[in-house]
């Protein structure tokens, strides 16, 4: 691939590039851009929840005709929550996270010159870009963007009579997501084929870094589940535009009976969560893969239980496709089915527990190098445990009854998937920034960024469990309609203050990131003294990654502090010494 040299123009190098390293950067920048929008939205609706009747000039400034004297309208509140959720889950933590690191690391860590198909890879990015643009455009629709929650349950999402955002806003949401799904499928197929076919000499599957295992399995889950969301969306489009009744039946709204008959919203719930739950792991597994790599490198120790880690990734992936019903315990589904889903759901706690224990054991007797990436990885393990444990409440059908759709759920999933995956993403950026940009990020700012974020994240989401346990439903524009909830008002103020603190801390990151691109200290060849192949490529990016032959691999990636070696790391390219056993 590398031997035919074609001249690169600005357009082929920076815009329609087929080079995986450039595409990875494009994903990252787009993801960060969407992330800024998503986080900013959470600030706006947190202001509303904490001070429901108060006027804010920032709300007046950004919400145009959707606000009145600096107080947002109930419709736009729901719209912002919906778009916040959609952007965070899909655009930031699916495309932004997987897209960035799968693209960057798969070829570099398995020893390939590029992805199996550079062209499809480019198409995949540009479809993602297009879907992002459409999602952003939908924010400016007169009646407001999609407002039925990120889960877009019909009939609410199907009927503009029910909520204004279900008109053009919802149409754009569906179009954007359809394109998004096409993009992730192209990406995922590429990742799978590349990992299976393009590994360098000696790179057995059991010598792959855990990052690659995570990206690989994530791609498989994506290929299995995203098409189901696509079909769910298509049927919804039919119901909305062509009068079919897949999800709708017996509806009387605004004084008239609609013609729909025989459909069921529960069908949509099944289809949605058949993707929706695996999606949680599509978001999380790459972050866990990144963490495995970073914790091991910075502990100067092999990851504990490499094979068990692979086994648990596979087990989680498999189980993730048969637990979707735990989102539907009170949907009217047959209670017996609920029992089955409780069983499978609590089963998935076992491989998750194994992962958590293995991370902790990896730290034990290590020699921890406290780089910013390491801090975020340790932070991830903490939030993963905190959030995962409350899954025992929600996954248990009986207990879910009273906390379903309350703020307890919001607290749970933000910790286990939102914050954990965001930490994984930050960790990845700090760690591989030198590989992406040839420069380093500043560590002092990294420390500030981590500690403020860590305090803020727990400050926001820990108290949030309690307002959920007080019975406060989520997606409420205001709690003032219930004197019963007057005593959660104070808690909401505390949460919002921590949220603003956490949001502001991200400015430190943005500053560090963008200015380091241009002014950061020049990177050295292998700044973290890591074993994996990406650190054997030249710092300057070249097409085809390695100037000469692709190096062969002789050992697994985790020979840190191995007895008998001078240094505390042994690159995968180093042949085994006489009499040395492979771990």
């Amino acid at each position: 691939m590398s031997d035919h040299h074609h001249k690169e123009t600005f357009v082929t190098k920076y815009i329609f590039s087929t080079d995986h390293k450039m595409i990875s950067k494009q994903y990252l920048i787009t993801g960060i851009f969407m992330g800024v929008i998503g986080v900013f939205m959470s600030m706006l609706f947190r202001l509303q929840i904490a001070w429901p009747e108060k006027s804010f000039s920032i709300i007046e400034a950004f919400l145009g005709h959707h606000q009145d004297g600096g107080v947002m309208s109930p419709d736009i509140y729901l719209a912002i929550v919906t778009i916040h959720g959609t952007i965070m889950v899909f655009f930031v933590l699916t495309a932004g996270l997987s897209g960035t690191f799968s693209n960057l690391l798969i070829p570099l860590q398995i020893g390939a010159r590029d992805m199996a198909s550079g062209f499809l890879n480019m198409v995949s990015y540009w479809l993602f870009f297009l879907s992002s643009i459409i999602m952003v455009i939908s924010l400016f629709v007169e009646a407001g963007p999609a407002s039925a929650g990120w889960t877009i349950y019909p009939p609410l999402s199907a009927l503009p009579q029910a909520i204004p955002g279900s008109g053009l806003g919802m149409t754009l949401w569906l179009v954007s997501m359809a394109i998004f799904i096409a993009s992730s499928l192209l990406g995922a197929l590429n990742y799978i084929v590349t990992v299976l076919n393009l590994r360098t000499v000696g790179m057995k599957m059991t010598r792959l870094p855990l990052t690659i295992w995570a990206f690989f399995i994530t791609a498989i889950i994506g290929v299995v589940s995203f098409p189901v969301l696509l079909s769910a969306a298509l049927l919804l489009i039919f119901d909305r535009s062509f009068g079919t009744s897949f999800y709708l039946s017996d509806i009387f709204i605004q004084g008239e009976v609609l013609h729909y008959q025989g459909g069921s919203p529960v069908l949509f719930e099944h289809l949605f969560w058949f993707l929706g739950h695996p999606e949680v792991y599509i978001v999380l597994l790459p972050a866990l893969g990144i963490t495995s790599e970073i914790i091991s490198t910075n502990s100067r120790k092999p990851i504990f239980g490499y094979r068990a880690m692979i086994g648990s990734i596979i087990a989680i992936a498999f189980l993730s496709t048969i637990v979707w019903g735990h989102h539907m315990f009170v949907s009217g589904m047959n209670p017996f089915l609920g029992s089955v889903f409780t069983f499978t759901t609590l089963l998935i706690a076992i491989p998750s527990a194994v992962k958590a224990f293995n991370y902790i054991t990896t730290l034990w007797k290590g020699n921890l190098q406290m780089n910013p990436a390491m801090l975020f990885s340790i932070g991830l393990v903490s939030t993963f445990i905190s959030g995962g444990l409350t899954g025992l409440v929600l996954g248990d059908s009986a207990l879910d009854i009273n906390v379903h759709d309350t703020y307890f759920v919001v607290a749970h999933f933000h910790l286990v998937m939102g914050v954990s995956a965001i930490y994984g993403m930050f960790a990845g950026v700090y760690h591989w920034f030198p590989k992406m940009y040839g420069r380093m990020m500043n560590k002092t700012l990294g420390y500030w960024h981590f500690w403020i974020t860590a305090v803020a994240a727990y400050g926001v989401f820990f108290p949030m469990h309690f307002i959920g346990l007080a019975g406060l439903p989520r997606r409420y524009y205001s709690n003032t309609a219930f004197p019963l909830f007057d005593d959660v008002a104070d808690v909401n103020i505390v949460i919002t203050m921590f949220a603003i603190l956490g949001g502001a801390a991200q400015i430190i990151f943005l500053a560090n990131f963008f200015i380091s691109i241009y002014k950061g200290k020049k990177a050295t060849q292998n700044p973290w003294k890591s074993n994996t192949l990406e650190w054997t490529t030249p710092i300057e990016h070249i097409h085809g990654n390695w100037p000469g032959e692709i190096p062969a691999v002789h050992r697994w990636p985790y020979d840190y502090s191995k007895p008998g070696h001078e240094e505390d790391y042994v690159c995968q390219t180093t042949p085994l010494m006489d009499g040395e056993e492979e771990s």
Partner: protein
Amino acid sequence: MTALLYILLAIVVAVAIWQIASILNLKSVIATEKDNNTQGILFAAFGIFFYGLMIFSFVKYSSILLPDSASVEGDRYDTLYMVTMVLILIVQAITQFLLFYFAFKYRGIKGRKALFYADSHKLELIWTVIPAVVLAGLVLYGLSVWIDVMDASDAEDPLIVEVYAKQFQWEARYAGEDNELGLANVRNIKGINTMGVDMTDKNALDDIPTRELHLPKGRKVIFKFRSQDVLHSAYMPHFRAQMNCVPGMVTQFAFTPSMTTEEMRLNDKTITKVEGINKIRAEKGEDPYEFDYLLLCNKICGASHYNMQMKIIVEEESEFNSWLNSQKTMAQVVQ
């Protein structure tokens, strides 16, 4: 315009941070031994913050939690909840301690070599089997409660009530003398017949439509839920009860109220909670609040989702019966 100002402000802040950082030697990029030390200690401090936050929240926020369960089934729910919560807290306390402690204890020192410890099947077996056993117990216990709670059989002469949801209101319909609800469909909605009851069905005539939900203490109630337009969810947190209302289908849930509204008002936890609320209300100059059970909507359903509620009144069976007898039947309402 102001929006632009805010964006500019954010950029200015970013630049300012950068400037400050450059004064503080921005070329430092890789953790030194000194950093390892400081950050390790910070992890210990963070551990303390973490436990502090946990303890603080449990102490400070216990008063806002829901009072004791007001249904027989809810008691089993609460026990299961306690058991699970204790388990969670034990695991949480131990694992987080180990995590922060190791981060502190093993912070890097120059020249020390980490222990090369890649695997231990024994350890991994231990932490696969122990969670598996504990979870198996939890699943069995949970399922026994679930089966119990979801039992909507009419063995014990239950009261049958329909709860009807629409944007953004609740209505109810009691099954009347025959304790059987008449058929209904949104296509029959007309004028005062707001629930679309089928008046040609003879079971419907004695049904009793109401705007308040009264329930008898000690008698099992089977709820049949319907929705007129979009998904709603009937959430009765004090009874540990919730079920979605789905257009085009009837869903159900059952429980046996165990405390009248009056009794609940005298419950210790309720008193503490209401006192807390009234203190806040007094500060804002609002009328004092008196406790009532509530039915809330808990599935996003439109602009006024946040204010879709109905009062629930639990009373002794005799009071309940005389209330019910004073209500008009469908036949009387429609004629």
